[in-house]
């Protein structure tokens, strides 16, 4: 089975701190990482390949530096890495991103399944997966927690819902986006790391994939960010003192008086 996994480079957000004076995010020393949700997508792709044979290709869109991160995925079982990199792709919103990815994927040839992480941790939009499926005119399922069965031209998977899950069947090729419940990503092997070192990431430009530059990057993006600001977290907690019993009593009274909870 030919599996394509879409990945995104995001800032490692664990160290996010706010500079109160300039109202901006302090980013010093924050390294770029592969979007954590995409790690589950990669792992799932590799697991399917190990069962059915075939190959796993990762694809990303970004600046040339992203190639270094893509290389790392070879160490966990990915066979090929492709990076779409071109000035024309800069400033893309989710629509322009899905368009570019769809053109890149078409340029790669035949595929059975495309796997994306449920969302990226920088933008948190969760839109590229479904939008990409639409651009490729194939079905999709989001929030997949388990693949029950996958074979030629068919997949049955479980989609996480608010109060349980749904079992969904689709013909392949299709797109799924996965949640972290789906698997436990493996660590890179020594052998894999050596292979990664030797692997070249294929870099493709807009022209290479035959993309219409008017539909890429900023030009192809209907949405525009007009303002960014740091939300105010200037709530000062009202501390409730006393023994556990006293604290409980005081808190209950406060909540009841605010009518968020009614005494029945």
């Amino acid at each position, binding site marked *: 089975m030919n599996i394509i996994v879409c990945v995104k480079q995001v*800032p490692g*957000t664990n160290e996010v701190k*706010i500079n109160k004076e*300039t*109202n*901006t*995010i302090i*980013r*010093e020393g*924050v390294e770029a990482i592969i979007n954590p949700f995409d790690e589950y997508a990669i792992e799932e792709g590799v697991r399917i390949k190990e069962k059915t044979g075939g190959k796993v290709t990762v694809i990303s869109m970004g*600046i040339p530096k992203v190639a270094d991160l893509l290389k790392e995925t070879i160490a966990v079982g990915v066979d090929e890495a492709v990076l779409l990199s071109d000035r024309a*792709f800069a400033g893309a919103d*989710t*629509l322009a991103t899905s368009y570019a990815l769809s053109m890149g994927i078409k340029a790669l040839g035949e595929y059975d399944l495309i796997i994306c992480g449920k969302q990226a*941790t920088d933008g*948190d939009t969760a*839109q*590229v997966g*479904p939008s*990409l499926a*639409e651009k490729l005119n194939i*079905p*999709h*399922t*989001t929030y997949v*927690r388990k693949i029950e069965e996958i074979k030629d031209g068919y997949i049955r998977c*479980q989609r*996480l*819902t*608010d109060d*349980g*899950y749904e*079992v*969904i*069947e689709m*013909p392949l090729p299709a797109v799924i986006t996965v949640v*972290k*419940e789906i698997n436990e990503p493996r660590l890179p092997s020594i052998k894999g790391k050596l292979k990664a070192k030797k692997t070249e990431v294929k870099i493709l430009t807009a022209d290479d994939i035959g993309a219409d530059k008017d539909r890429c990057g*900023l030009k192809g993006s*209907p*949405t*525009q*960010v*007009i*303002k*960014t600001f740091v939300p105010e*977290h200037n*709530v000062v*907690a*009202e501390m*409730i003192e006393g023994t*556990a*019993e006293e*604290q*409980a009593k005081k*808190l*209950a009274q406060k909540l009841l008086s*605010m009518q*968020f*909870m009614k005494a029945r």
Partner: protein
Amino acid sequence: MSCINIIAEKCFGCGLCVSACPFNAIEVTDKKAEILDNCTLCGSCVSSCKFNAIEFVKDEEAESSGLSSYKGVWVFAEHKNGEARQIAFELLGSGRKLADDLSVPLSAVLIGSEIEKEAEKLFAYGADKVYLVEDESLRLFNDESYADIFVQLIKSYKPEIVLMGATTYGRSLAPRVASRLNTGLTADCTELSIDPEKKILMQTRPAFGGNLMATIICPNHHPQMATVRPKVMKPIQPDESRKGEIIRPEININSNPKVKVVDVVRTLYETVNLAEADIIVSGGRGLGDPKNFALVEELARVLGGAVGASRATVDAGWIDYSHQVGQTGKTVGPKVYFACGISGAIQHLAGMSSSDIIIAINKNPDAPIFKVATFGIVGDVLEVLPALIKEFKAHTA
């Protein structure tokens, strides 16, 4: 094309903009800042520069023709088991205000099977019209067939704004529809308003796990589409006497879609689901032992709320992933959120900081959770929880 320019004479390579950039898209080489290809034109760097060396050159694009033929505000009336969900009323609440500001009608799109009765509720909550599409094959939400119908409706009736819930279904349907129409879509908005001059939709949403807010517009494409975070918008006071018009559009329904929902499994032990709960009681590592989750569950039961959990407890296998609140779990916004023994990592805060009232119970007075809390209790969660259960039982008995 819009762009960000560094004015070379004014730039001293101080690097303030480098740290201000949320996207790592600025580098300083030879004491001059340089904008890299991954710039998203967010403009954060412009205000950070002390030397006025960065300018945002805005593109005065000609108004796309034909946009004026798009009129009206639409919301997707999501339903479950044949009943409109709370998110539909929240969207109507927000949509009502937008429609009034634009002096246009507010409509709801209701797709399902034997679902006409729900239209009355949608009118009561502010809809002027309901576009009703019924077919047995549409009883359950289906990405493919719902998207097909939605696209046909938008093409025939041309609304200027379309809102869907940032729910499991809305976040799957909306990008599919927007992508087919080649229009813009803004995810998970927490604030919507109309620009009084340009009459366009201003969409504000959190990014970077809530550390940064961004206001986004879609000026030259219609409809302007957004998904809206549940529990943030307020429904209007329902008025049962309010009447509206039901429209049954003539459209093609593909009753045999490629995507098939073959089973719906409800996780039985949950009585109230996180996304819709008014009260959530969440437990963290401070509980010390998985069996102590029983206290969290009991308080939730007494209050009629749902049970949440921190990532640490889910990763440790104390509780199922479906309970996880935070960036890698669910985003919630209840009226009251109890964080019991949760220190409040930024990823957790990203998933719950839009709650109206946050109650933090933690042994460590310096835990970051207290920074977002409305009420703080410093103490042992294993002592405070039983006391709270006892106290609320007395009030709700």
